[in-house]
């Protein structure tokens, strides 16, 4: 199929090439709007039908010192006509808005790749802020790249000459330089402007600025000017087309992990017929879930921005006690604060979903960077014997399904269930085939209302869970609490045998979740002797790496865990089939620890804790070595 050309502009490029995939990185100051620019490119590519994956990478400071190295914000996207699983190892194109952005990102660029720079921000002061002794534009730094030195700011200003803002004319115009740059890329990759034009209309006209209509006009003009500039100056040797990927039939949208997770929670609450209660305290990178849910009050969603992490989980437990679906969301440091309350839910056997969007740690760590190092915290980070369910989505879109599963497990087994997402999944985006809500199975939740033959800790024989009997139900008044209770009757009880019995029952109950967990599937040749097994967001890189090795005939298979506690029932058997087991993780070996402890297998870790996801090439290198 011929992709639509940029709106209203005739293509006169001499050369026109079709390519499979492209990786672009936008880099600039954290105030330059790199995330917005990247998102526009993403949405346009999604609507065009490309498969894609994104990696936003930004500093913890909202406005780090302007122009400084720590203040650089980046957004990487890979878009393709094929099935892809990662945002790409190394960019084909870097667009750098200042010297700091160039300096920080150039080391990731392969020789002869495209580097576009905004020459207007390479003044003496800019260079000094980025600790550049010489100007990289003319000191030979860019020699081994296809460098395009474009005065983006001045071109933007010229393009907007006909517009006059009453207030702050120059800064308001300058801000559109990213749209001008976006226009250049839209021409280069033959993307239509329509999606972005509409989005500008939608978003900018909402701004409180009295000159909002003019803001819309300026942004749209800048975008168009960028396209025209690339077209008319014959800036590039060639224009490229990336055809739509082959997708299953259906309706698609682009979705980030946090939005998918929030939607999954709302959907789960409807499937269960429960009111959703979300208690949370603002924390990066989980806050977007609170923002998303706060918008959905017409679903009866109750969001509670608590005074602290502890109150957020405590209120969620109170809501669960009252018959709502209690959910709390946070990141690793918040989980640490919630631990005691999570144990209250373990003890009182109330459903609770804990969303942990993992980030670099320990302590405050790297707030905006990704990591998978809370697995052992979720597993063991509480006093005494404290079994909980643990699930982990593999991709941004999968956050939707995992949220629903977590609700299903928490309500069926009456216990806390963790969702371990991470910064990479939370902010990364991918195309999502929107499911038909009617096709989603109901979550069967029944409150106990019949006092006949009931006792607070009487258990279901299959799930070992107790009944959910909520305040407001006549003749079932009872008392729960964190203090140990007697089997069946739930009275305060310090009897040694009863305590051990209850500890074992709570553990057995969580173990029984395995009866609802699908077997882990292995992808790879029958005669593979090496298994690469991961969990969470390493899925994309692991899959891409193993598939690459398999294409070259290496005897390697892969598997991915979405259920970390309990594990799928067949996991032990699967592991026992392989001579070598490799476990890639963005930590120092946490799944590795669990697998070795539980299955006494000689698994080996591939570990990275740099606040960045694995590159496919990094994994290939290790797998190749290990397979020899």
């Amino acid at each position: 199929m011929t992709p639509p050309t940029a709106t209203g502009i005739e293509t006169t490029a001499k050369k026109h090439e079709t390519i499979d995939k492209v990786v672009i990185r936008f880099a600039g100051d954290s105030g330059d709007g790199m995330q917005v620019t990247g998102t526009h490119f993403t949405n346009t590519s999604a609507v065009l039908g490309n498969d894609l994956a994104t990696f936003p990478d930004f500093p913890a400071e909202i406005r780090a010192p302007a122009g400084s190295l720590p203040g650089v914000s980046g957004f990487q996207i890979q878009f393709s006509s094929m099935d892809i699983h990662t945002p790409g190892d190394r960019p084909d194109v870097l667009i750098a808005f200042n010297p700091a952005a160039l300096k920080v990102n150039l080391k990731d660029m392969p020789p002869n790749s495209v580097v576009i720079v905004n020459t207007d921000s390479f003044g003496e002061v800019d260079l000094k802020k980025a600790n550049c002794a010489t100007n990289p534009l003319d000191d030979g730094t860019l020699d081994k790249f296809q460098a395009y030195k474009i005065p983006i700011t001045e071109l933007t200003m010229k393009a907007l000459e006909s517009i006059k803002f009453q207030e702050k004319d120059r800064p308001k115009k300058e801000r559109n330089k990213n749209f001008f740059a976006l226009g250049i890329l839209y021409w280069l990759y033959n993307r239509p402007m329509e999606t972005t034009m509409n989005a500008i209309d939608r978003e900018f006209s909402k701004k409180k600025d009295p000159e909002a209509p003019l803001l819309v006009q300026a942004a749209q003009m800048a975008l168009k000017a960028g396209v025209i500039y690339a077209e008319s100056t014959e800036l590039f040797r060639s224009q490229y087309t990336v055809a739509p990927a082959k997708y299953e039939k259906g309706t698609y949208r682009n979705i980030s992990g946090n939005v998918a997770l929030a939607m999954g929670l709302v959907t789960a609450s409807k499937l269960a017929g429960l009111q959703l209660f979300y208690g949370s305290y603002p924390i990066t990178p989980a806050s977007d879930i609170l923002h998303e849910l706060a918008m959905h009050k017409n679903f009866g969603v109750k969001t509670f921005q608590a005074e602290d992490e502890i109150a957020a989980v405590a209120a969620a437990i109170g809501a669960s006690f009252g018959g709502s679906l209690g959910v709390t969301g946070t990141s690793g440091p918040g989980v640490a604060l919630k631990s005691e309350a999570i144990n209250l839910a373990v003890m009182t056997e109330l459903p609770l979903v804990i969303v942990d969007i993992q980030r670099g740690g320990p302590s405050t760590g790297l707030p905006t960077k990704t990591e998978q190092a809370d697995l052992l915290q979720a597993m063991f980070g509480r006093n005494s014997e404290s079994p909980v369910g643990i699930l982990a989505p593999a991709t941004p879109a999968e956050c939707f399904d995992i949220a629903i599963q977590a609700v299903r497990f928490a309500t069926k087994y009456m216990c806390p269930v963790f969702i371990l997402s991470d910064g990479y999944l939370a902010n990364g985006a991918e195309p999502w085939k929107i499911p038909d809500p009617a096709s989603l199975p109901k979550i069967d939740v029944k409150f106990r209302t019949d006092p006949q033959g009931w006792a607070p800790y009487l258990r279901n024989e299959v799930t070992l869970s107790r009944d959910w009997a909520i305040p407001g139900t006549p003749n079932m008044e009872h008392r729960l609490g964190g203090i140990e209770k007697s089997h069946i009757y739930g009275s305060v009880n310090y009897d040694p045998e009863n305590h051990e019995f209850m500890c074992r029952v709570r553990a057995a109950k969580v173990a029984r979740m395995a009866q609802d967990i699908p077997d882990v599937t292995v992808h790879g040749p029958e005669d593979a002797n090496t298994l690469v097994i991961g969990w969470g967001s390493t899925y994309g890189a692991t899959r891409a790496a193993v598939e690459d090795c398999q294409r070259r005939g290496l005897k390697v298979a892969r598997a991915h865990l979405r259920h970390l506690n309990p594990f799928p029932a067949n996991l032990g058997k699967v592991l026992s089939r392989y001579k070598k087991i490799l476990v890639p993780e963005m930590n120092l070996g946490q799944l590795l620890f669990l697998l070795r402890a539980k299955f006494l297998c000689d698994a080996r870790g591939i570990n990275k804790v740099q606040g960045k996801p694995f590159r496919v090439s990094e994994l290939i290198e290790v797998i190749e070595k290990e397979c020899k």
Partner: protein
Amino acid sequence: MVAPTQPQTPAAAPKYTKADFQSDQEIRWCPGCGDYAILNAAQQVFAQLGFPKHKMVMISGIGCSSRFPYYVNTYGFHTIHGRAPAVATGLKLANPELQVWVATGDGDALSIGGNHLIHALRRNVDIKILLFNNRIYGLTKGQYSPTSELGKKVKSAPYGSIDQPINPITLALASEATFVARSVDIYPKHLMEILRKAADHKGSAFIEILQNCNIFNDLAFDHFVDREARNRYNVSLEHGKPLIFGDKRELGIRLNGLNPEVVKLGENGITEKDLIIHDEHNPTLAAILSRLNPPATADDMEKAQAKNPGSILPLPIGIFRNDRLPTLEERTDGQIADQKKAKGEGDIRKLLFAGDMWDVK
């Protein structure tokens, strides 16, 4: 699924006796503890309220007082240290029809749970918080608490406590609590009256109950609450009435600038008109009254009596503030109703099929 359908509210409120609110659990407070009197008063009031007991919930944190829910035959939740107001907030938001009481102590509410207390109060969640204030840690065997007086000698402060105590009433008022009151464990009639009014109040209610710990801090309040002392050293706050007290009701409280002072009626031409008239709808006045305190200990009392007995301030008991303001639940449900009106009842299909979409055929 929604909460189970309740039988239609019967025309007549359910008739209960105190026994209906007694659970089958063995009470494990020390013999002679002030908690018994509070439990007894609460059970009697609950019986009188005629509120369906299956819609009542007792929530507590950790400490002696926090065993309270086990002994009341309603729904109950003995949670974790300091977090009862947060759990109660979630419960009340989940189901605003419930009547939720929180039982807590000076350590639980003012130390480990201080943050949750102030935020529950400022949000005006419709919960009734009973603060059992005995000025000591009981369950951990006698350490000083946030309300212990300076210089108190206990195991964790053998040379005397060096921490300035907190004033629970001032704190509650500063936290924008809409109902703030004080009573004493050994004033059953007064206590029951306050509990009834707290039950009637819509919004956050905070009741400080001075409670005697006969094991670790015995007779801590005796110098102003025992039968001989209470007329002289208590002043009852009654809305619209002047602050009068004394054995023969011969004393009053007058404002001298910003400072309340004890005056004798009839002396120097002072009449009731010169006294503070209590107004439970005036939080500024409530804040001033919250600063009225008799000497903290019996020793301090003796010293004050030796110096200038006439000027010793009494302890206000009764309701400091009582205002009806929108509750957190009302505001939450109001926003939900508004959004449903504006956007229609939430539809999952519309939620998922939104934003920039494309079809693959």
